[in-house]
Structure formats: C-alpha cells, structure tokens
C-alpha cells in the first residue's frame, strides 16, 4: 500500500492520482482466527490494531454487521478531552489524550485532531468552585492545560456567546481544558482500519454475528451471516448492542441500558467559534463546535427513555434548539443541515467496562455512554492488553464488571445508579 507523505501527495498530483491502492482489503472470512473482535467501530478496530502492534498477534478478524464506522463511530460529535477526575478514569483519559496527540503519525493517516480547547461555561460562584476543584485535580495529576478563566478572558476568546447580564443564566466564567478539541471521526475509523489491515488483520464487513458457540465456560466460536468462525479468544466491542451480544453468549444481565443520543449539524458558516463550548445549567445540557467545513456541530441530552431505535425524538430537538439560542443567539437564523441519532450503552455509574467475563475467553469492551470517541486509542490499547494477557492493566483494574460488588462506582457526576443520568 502507498504510504501517505508530502512527496507521495505531490507525485500523485503530478501523475493523475492513478497510483493509489485501496486502503484495506475485503477478505473472505477464514474458518479460524486466534482472536475475533465483534464490532467494526472505533473500539473494535483500535483493539485489533494494538493487538497486532503491541502484542504481536496477527491472526485476527474484526466482524462488522454493516460497514465499519456505520455505528456510533460515524455518529458522534467528535469531542476529545480528558477532564475526568475519578481515579482510574483520570489516568485512562489522560493517556488517551496523549495517544491522540500522536495518532496521525502513528497511523500515517491525518485524523485532523485539532486541539482547539474545551470551554465549560460557568454560571454561579458555586459552579466556579466545583470546577476549580475538578480542574485543580487535573493540574495536580499532570494537566497544566486546565485553567479557570475570568469573564473578560472568555469574552476575548469566544466573543459571540450570549454575555447579556439579563440572560436567564448569565455567564460568570469558564473552565478551560486547552489540549482538548475535536478530530474527524471517519478519518479515525479509516486510519485504524488501514493500519490494522497492513498488520495482517482481516476486516470483514457485512458479517453479522448471529450466535456465540460455547463448550461449557469456554467460547469456541461464532455463527455469522457469512458462516461459522472458530476462535481462541472473543472480544465484544459493539457499543449500543452489548446486551444483545451478551445474551447471544448465553448470559442475561449487564449493568447497562441502551439509550439514544442525538446530534445536529448546521449549514456551513464562516469561522464563528474557535473552541468546543459546553453549557450545562438548570437541567439543560448543550455542547457545540464548528467543523472544518464550517458546519456547527452540536447536541444535548439523550432521549430520556431507553431505546434501541436509531431515531431521535422531537422534544429533544426543541430542548437543544432552545439551549442553542440561549448560548449562541446568533444561530437563530441558521438552517439545520442534518440530524441523526445513535444507540449508546449507558452504564450504571457512567463509566466504561474493559473487563473479563464469566466465560474464560470472552472479553467485554462496553458502557461508553456518550464519551467513547475520545476513549478510542486508550480503549484499544487496554482492551488489547487484557485480551493478550488475560488480566487487566493497572489503569483499568476498576473498569471491570465486578466493581459494583466491591462497592466501587466510577461516577463522575455523582448521579447514582440510573443510566440515563450519566450524560
């Protein structure tokens, strides 16, 4: 395969772009693989890539029922940040952010990672205190990019926000995470797919897993729409479908509920907003950034009831539009271009699972709530490490399915065991 480089881009430009080869193969499934990963989203592909790269396992298949990136990987609003404070999450997301900073080089694929800062608006002295506590935790654990900004500083950086002193929730300041930003989600999918393929991994699309075969507490293989495949180790990375695959493996319960989250993009505008801006106040929740094409990309709360339908409801459209108007009133006349939704697996404490399971050789990657895009490189790294070594890495030691039994909840919001509240 042709590597991407300045020279190659120049040379192909001179020779009619005829020398590029396809980015990854379209192989027929083999009857056996050492490791099978179900789910061709970000986490499945990243896991396969790191299994090959870090652990030397190359006989791997990634099985995807549709096309890679057709799930949440291609539906998210691409925010990457590490402003988490719970032990475990703190290290996990900061490691992820460090991997993001090198990802385009690592994959030889421009994922357009743009560290444009992530601004959380603050509307009360209490909110400033709480944010100061969290951002001090970040500073004490390695993020000197965590800052609390005054109103004056914020006005300079983001002049178009609603600074009206008579607004329902006047802005008083902001918590700013400067190394955070956005990336191009499709490019991340394609980059991992291309890099994994180069390491010999078979990416098999249009291959739905319809059954998981077992011999006692061991998984022996999977039934798929393209035939039976046997394997030594099976990894699940199916995001919103975790419970369904779990039941295919003959088990019933997970600390997960499937909910649906919507996102929106407007017609392209000239540069308007240089950062990711987040507003959360009085039950409202809204976040927005501007894509490189100029579209305003935004979203808010999930749909408030459990659902497997990848179709959003209208009350949320209204909520989000209201929040948009209160944060950036200048958007009032902007037209919406597209609107979609994805099914996310909301966990009982809002944190993820990279875990062994009751079955000896089945491994689970799940519970990403609405924050799994930013997690991609670390998720792949630690899930691959778990599958290769059959024991969790120190950083994800409490991201197992049994943490609640041990009395541990990684609950960033302190919302309690109700999945829909962990947005």
């Amino acid at each position, binding site marked *: 395969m042709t590597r991407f480089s300045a020279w190659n881009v120049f040379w192909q430009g001179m020779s009619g772009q005829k020398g590029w080869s396809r980015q990854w193969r379209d192989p027929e499934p083999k009857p056996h693989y050492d490791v099978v990963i179900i789910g061709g989203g970000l986490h499945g592909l990243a896991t396969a890539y790191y299994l090959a790269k870090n652990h030397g396992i190359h006989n791997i298949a990634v099985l995807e029922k549709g096309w890679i990136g057709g799930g949440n990987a291609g539906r998210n609003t691409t925010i990457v940040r590490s402003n988490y404070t719970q032990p475990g999450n703190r290290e996990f997301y900061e490691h992820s952010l460090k991997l993001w900073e090198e990802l385009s080089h690592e994959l030889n694929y421009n994922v357009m990672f743009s560290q444009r800062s992530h601004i959380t608006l603050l509307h009360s002295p209490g909110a400033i205190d709480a944010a100061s506590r969290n951002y001090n935790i970040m500073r004490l654990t390695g993020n000197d990019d965590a800052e609390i900004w005054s109103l004056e500083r914020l006005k300079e950086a983001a002049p178009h926000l609603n600074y009206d002193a008579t607004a329902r929730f006047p802005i008083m300041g902001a918590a700013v995470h400067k190394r955070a930003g956005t990336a191009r989600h499709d490019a991340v999918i394609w980059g991992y797919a291309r890099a994994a393929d180069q390491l010999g991994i078979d990416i098999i699309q249009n291959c739905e897993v319809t059954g998981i075969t077992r011999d006692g507490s061991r998984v022996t293989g999977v039934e798929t729409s393209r035939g039976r495949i046997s394997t030594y180790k099976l990894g699940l990375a199916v995001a919103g479908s975790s419970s369904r695959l779990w039941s295919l493996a003959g088990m019933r*319960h997970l600390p997960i509920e499937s909910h649906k989250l919507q996102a929106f993009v407007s017609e392209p505008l000239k540069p308007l907003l240089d950062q990711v801006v987040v507003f959360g106040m009085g039950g409202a929740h809204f976040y927005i950034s501007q894509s490189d094409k100029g579209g305003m990309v935004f979203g808010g709360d999930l749909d*408030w009831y*459990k*659902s*497997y339908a990848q179709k959003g409801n209208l009350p949320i459209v209204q909520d989000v539009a209201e929040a948009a108007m209160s944060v950036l009133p200048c958007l009032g006349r902007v037209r919406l271009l597209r609107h979609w939704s994805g099914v996310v697996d909301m966990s009982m404490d809002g944190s993820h699972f990279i875990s062994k399971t009751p079955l000896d050789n089945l491994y689970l990657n799940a519970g990403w709530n609405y924050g799994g895009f930013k997690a991609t490189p670390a998720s792949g790294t630690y899930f691959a490490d778990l599958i290769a070594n059959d024991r969790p890495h120190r950083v994800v030691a409490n991201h197992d399915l049994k943490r609640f039994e041990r009395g541990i909840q990684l609950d960033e919001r302190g919302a309690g*065991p109700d999945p829909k509240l962990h947005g």
Partner: protein
Amino acid sequence: MIRIPCPFCGTRDHSEFSYGGDGSIKYPALDAPMEDWHDAVFQRENICGRQVETWHHVNGCRMWLLVERDTMTHEIHSVRPAHPDMAQALEVTA
C-alpha cells in the same frame, strides 16, 4: 413523540412523563444478602423488544405507571398503575 394512555388522565405526550426504568425489578427484603441487592440495583436485562417499565406522570396526575413498551418500535402495549391496589381498584370500577 410517544403517546401514553394514562389510565387516570387519558392519552398524553410522553414529554408529560418522566421515565423510571426497568419495571420488572423487585427490591429484595432489607436483610436480603448483598448479592440480591447488587443485582436489583445494578443488573439489567436491557431487553430489545417488549419490556415492562416504570413511567411517572409527573406533569399530570403524578401517578407511577407500569408501561409495557417495545424498546425498538416504541409501540405501547399496555399501561396500568404501578401500585397494585390502585390497579385492582381500577379493574373493579371498570
């Protein structure tokens, strides 16, 4: 918009209600073993298809309801008051 036929108020938009969760969960006795409590609080079957769930008609009669709903199509199959005595009383008067 999902439309929920509240047995007390009639059919209303779901935005009048707040969603509880899996209605099949029964909390164990207070002195039940920790595992039973763990399972009731944290473990979910997370059914794709018909499930019984709790909804609170918070901007209406404020009653808790047991709604049987398809989590894929959002079709409502049945609605009854969550309180068993209330359900029984309704049946008698009907």
